[in-house]
């Protein structure tokens, strides 16, 4: 845990520290119990109020919080018997995307997702969750494997974007992402993607062309990072707060725009302050959606998936 506390988390964290101190002070004694209970209730209320009124900028800070649970954390909580599979069979293995086979409620699934690191060393290894072409080609391999064995596909999205480097361009970053998009649109198996943190541009969408698109409550999904957008349109990276608002990137925004199918509630105060509760809510949602998707024929699922993305966008007709 980095222990990083965001500005708007501070009053709550201070209150919680006070409660802990009181508890330590009073030991097992009961004379302080009433006071502690009162403070705990107050902390919860404060949190609920504050988190109901988060600005897009604050949502973005939560989505990128260094203590936020990552792909492997959810795999550990929601799935069992995870076996990681590696390599794109062409160039290398990209640790920025993890994937493999596992069980969801006892049934086999193929799972993959971008993986960020917890510290500098891990982040160097994981490239901050920014995948290179070999990561997307490993993803393609696993998607095809899901199709071959009729296993549902689960994709956990959490990346600032695909890596913009020289090697990545040399090895065809654009082609690798494009092929993922086309491949996913045509998969015969049920597929669900969940934006668990940052959904950054094409590098996120590359594993997001699925039957259902879910988002955790404080996750964001956007065509470009607010910072990138600000530096291009405002010619000033400092305008990123404004850009974050303009881009309409929160989970609720995406429901309104017809992109996100369901917002999965997080623990009060965000997933980093309650992984088990968040993972349980996610588990519930996955069980329900896979159940619905399994009831459809392959042809029906393919038609509906095509129609789902076919509808996306806002076009006006000139008379």
């Amino acid at each position, binding site marked *: 845990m980095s222990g990083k506390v965001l500005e708007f988390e501070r009053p709550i964290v201070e209150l919680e520290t006070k409660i802990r101190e009181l508890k330590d002070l009073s030991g097992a004694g009961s004379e302080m119990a009433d006071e502690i209970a009162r403070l705990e209730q107050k902390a919860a209320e404060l949190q609920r109020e504050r988190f109901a009124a988060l600005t897009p900028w604050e949502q973005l800070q939560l989505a990128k919080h260094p203590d936020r649970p990552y792909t492997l954390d959810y795999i550990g909580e929601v799935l069992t018997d995870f076996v990681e599979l590696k390599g794109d069979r062409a160039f290398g293995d990209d640790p920025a995307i993890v994937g493999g086979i596992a069980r969801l409620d006892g049934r086999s699934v193929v799972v993959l997702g971008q993986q960020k690191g917890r510290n500098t060393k891990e982040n160097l290894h994981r490239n901050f969750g920014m995948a290179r072409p070999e990561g997307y080609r490993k993803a393609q391999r696993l998607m095809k494997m899901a199709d071959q064995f009729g296993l549902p596909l689960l994709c956990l999205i959490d990346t600032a974007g695909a890596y913009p480097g020289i090697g990545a361009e040399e090895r065809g970053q654009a082609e690798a992402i494009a092929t993922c998009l086309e491949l996913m649109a045509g998969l015969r198996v049920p597929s669900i993607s969940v934006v668990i943190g940052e959904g950054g541009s094409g590098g996120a969408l590359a594993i997001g062309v699925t039957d259902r698109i879910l988002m955790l409550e404080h996750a964001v999904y956007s*065509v470009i990072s607010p910072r990138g957008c600000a530096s291009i349109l405002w010619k000033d990276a400092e305008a990123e707060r404004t850009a974050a608002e303009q881009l309409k990137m929160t989970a609720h925004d995406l429901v309104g725009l017809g992109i996100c199918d369901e917002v999965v509630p997080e623990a009060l105060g965000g997933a980093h302050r309650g992984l088990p509760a968040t993972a349980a809510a996610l588990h519930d949602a996955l069980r329900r959606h896979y159940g619905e998707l399994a009831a459809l024929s392959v042809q029906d699922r393919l038609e509906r998936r095509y129609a789902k993305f076919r509808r996306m966008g806002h076009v*006006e007709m*000139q008379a």
Partner: protein
Amino acid sequence: MIRPGKGAEIRMAWWRRKKQALEQTSESNKVSVPRGLWTKCDACGEITYTAEFVQNLRVCPVCGHHHVMPTKERIAAMLDRDSWQPLDLELRSGDPLGFRDQAAYSDRVAKADRSVGPTDAFTAGFGTIDGLDVSAGFFVFEYMGGSMGSVVGEKVTRVFERALERKIPAVIFSASGGARMQEGILSLMQMAKTSAARGRLRAAGIPYVSVCLHPTTGGVAASFAMLGDVILAEPRALVGFAGPRVVQQTIGQELPPGFQRAEFLLEHGMLDRIVGRLELREQLGLMLRLLAGAPAKAAAALPPAPAG
């Protein structure tokens, strides 16, 4: 001190003399040279008579540099004469996010509509190449940098769907900076929508040729532009996922010469061929006929052999 008169100036040392026009001409008797009569090559500086330059498809006759080409000229140069039937002219961008940066998005669209035309950044339709029917699409780079919002995504999708419906090849000429930021996530989703439509064409065994023009980057490169059965590019066209500035900022070092140019992509196996603009239509015709298993045009044009 003697103040020199006009005549004295002439006798002045030449380095003190003020420059004077050789001859005073009034506005009225000036010989006017029409603007744009001559065009200077961006690469070699050669000056060419503009009419000839345009005739030569804006390729420098001396160094072969391919200059940016207005979409109207592009369409005329790539398709058979008078074969173009534009479609989807009624589609217009809305402002789904109420987006406003330094100007409102709706104002930017209105301005582009006025200065470029109401095509948005893509024009789609039917045409023929070397006598072969194609479902074609051309990016309009002049329109907001060819950026792909909902209208562009819809039109690209329709190019593939019409190709599927009529069982004719699809050809798309891309020139785009990528997704249109002002439509946010809806622009991003156009990558998925267009790629899904492209997938249906592939499944049906109908050819799709992608031609990458300068520049083809971002969400357009990372979707249908890189999904052609055959991918072509014009010489020196910039093609890549991230723009060179972003790559440079990320890695913090100089980029290798020719980075992300068509020649670089060809070398790394990302393109089939680089084709010069002057040969492009002919080459497209040849490739489309080969892919479709159609006879060569000369043979097709031969009268049937007499019986007996």
